[in-house]
């Protein structure tokens, strides 16, 4: 019950004051543990102009356990798995680094920051991370292509 109260509180806060570039709604009316987020690609990043659909699953242990975040829109990014899961797991999203005072709004800010500045040293896609570090131009090109292809 406490978790529900907290999620409702967060949902209220986030709807009145959404983080920049994010639109949030519940995926299903009756399930407050499943959030749908549409995030605009940050300016000055190869993802600019893209609209990324992100699903956030709040575990029933929330806020003691971190939310699980998946990109439903394909994205070329070293920190997002390049499969149909599109999982992102870094920083505060890790189970051992998550703290209850972290909020979904913080998570979304983190995600947007990671879109703007990928963390190749903490990558899940080693190939993309390598390209990001060694051939930034090629990385940007592919990322933009993917935005055109999938995130319009």
């Amino acid at each position, binding site marked *: 019950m406490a978790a529900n109260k*907290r999620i409702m509180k967060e949902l209220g806060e986030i709807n009145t004051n959404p983080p920049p570039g994010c639109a949030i709604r519940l995926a299903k009316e009756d399930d407050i543990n499943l959030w749908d987020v549409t995030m605009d690609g940050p300016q000055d990043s190869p993802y600019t102009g893209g609209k990324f659909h992100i699903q956030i699953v709040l575990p029933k242990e929330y*806020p003691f356990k971190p939310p699980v975040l998946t990109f439903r829109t394909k994205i070329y990014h070293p920190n997002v798995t390049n499969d149909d899961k599109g999982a992102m797991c*870094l920083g505060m999203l890790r*189970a051992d680094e998550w703290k209850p*005072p972290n909020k979904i709004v913080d998570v979304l800010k983190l995600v947007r920051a990671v879109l*703007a500045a990928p963390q190749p040293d903490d990558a899940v896609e080693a190939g993309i991370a390598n390209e990001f570090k060694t051939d930034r131009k090629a990385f940007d090109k592919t990322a933009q292509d993917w935005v055109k292809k999938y995130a319009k």
Partner: protein
Amino acid sequence: MSATSLRVLTAEFPDPQWASSTDTIQQVNSSISYWALPSPAPVTLSTTNANPGSDLTGLLYYPDLPPNDACNDAAAPYVPKNVTRRSNLPVAGYDVIAVAPWLSPDCVQKYLRSARRTGGRAFIFFLPDNSTMPVPGSDDPTWALGDGENWKRENPYPVYAIPGTTGNELLYQSSLYSGNVTDVPHGQLLTETGVDPRNYVRLFVDISTGGGTALPSLWVFLLVVLGILLGIIGCTSLSMHILQRRRRIALRRRVATGEVDLEALGIKRLTVPQEVLDKMPLYTYGSGAPVAHPSTARDGAATTPSEPTTTLAESKLSTSTSSRPSSPFPNIRPTPTLIRGNSYHPSPLQQPTCAICLDDFVPGTPDSPTGTIVRELPCHHIFHPECVDAFLRDSSSLCPMCKKSALPKGYCPRVVTNAMVRRERMMRGLQPDAAGDVESGATAGEEGVQTRRRSMMMSWGGQRRFFSAPSQEMQAMDAAGSGSTTRPPPPAATRTGMFGTSLARERRSVTQPLPTQQSQPVQPPSNPSRREWARERAVAMLGRDRAPVDPDAEEAMRTPRWRKVLQGVFPNMGGGRAS
């Protein structure tokens, strides 16, 4: 050692007196000679000198009685005139088996004596009743000779019994095969097919004592081997259980002395039992006044949660002036947490919000003590009791904020299991069966473990260090993000931005129990490569992220069933889980 079957066939063999090679008994072509497999199997009356596992074989003969004996008349209806007698067989060189009717006890004794004298290898009796019915069992009174079973002992051969018709048939057939080769049935044919006319052609008996007789002794042997094995297993198991028990006790002791931190080592994820939870201070936010514990309330203390016994000012005064480790208030339970200097007045500015439900705490004032009741953990983090209690009791003993243990130092869960012992040993990098136990509690060993654990954690940290370099934007955002929620002051220099605080946390939690060692240089491990190997092994097996809720269940999940059984018997085994 009872007979399992009887086989009779016709055999030819030379007279050993002139033959160059004796004991060459050959079966005569069975299509033109007698053979039989009478059933049912003979009943065994005496097993004297019957060798288990080896067949009794010999030439069939009828043992003669003294010429004028009355038994001859009694036997006459069953014994053909030309029956094969001892005199129809070679004197020596071949085993012989006697067949005769079971007449009166007196006649039977005479037959037995005759067979004894003529060297019978075995004796087969049949009942003089022309019946095909199976004969009664060996303990039937039919077979009593009135000498208290003495006959079984004094006759040095085994004795069997077969139905009457079978016996009649055998003696009848033996009368056909008692003369020269040419006189036996198909004698002419036999000589034409290569049987030496000078040879004997007689009935040959094979009493199989085969599997049935061999088994009992084999069973005994197997049982003895099994017994010895069970004994060895039992002793080993017992000693292992005793050893494992000692290890559990040792682990419990080392947990109690703070030498082993089950949670930090990833051995077991602990939870906070209700009685420990009850001892954690509850007080009105902002006032610092303790609220009655359920237990003290039960004791009849006049305090209630809405009526704190002291005000902030009083509390501050008493705790700052009194450094003695005793509570100035006799009606307040002297728990360790009550003694600490600034325990009861965390600045409202530092923790204005419950991190779990995100609701703000309402401060109480000395005048109107209606503030929020908060639960303070030993790390001084405060939460609503309704928010944090269930979590600590059911999920984790770690503070949700700083991940420090909320359990009292040296707390040991009530049950220390073998699985925990195994994990702890594995984390120490010891082979499960290593001899040199450091469990004796020697201080040298203790330090060694501490040092090793620290170096272990350090290298974990080292691997993650790349992770703690956030970009400028991150830090800016972090500051912005945490602006709305003022967080408690981070322990010095452990905050590295949004990413990677776990390194600091790990290092802190490990070094914290031993502050004096912090200034000492970490001793380089005596055998770094081996230690590294052990660490990697442990990490590979246990995972590095979190301690398991239930190491036994965890272990049970990864352990195949046969291994579980093995571990039940030999609890010391099983550390070497295949990685």
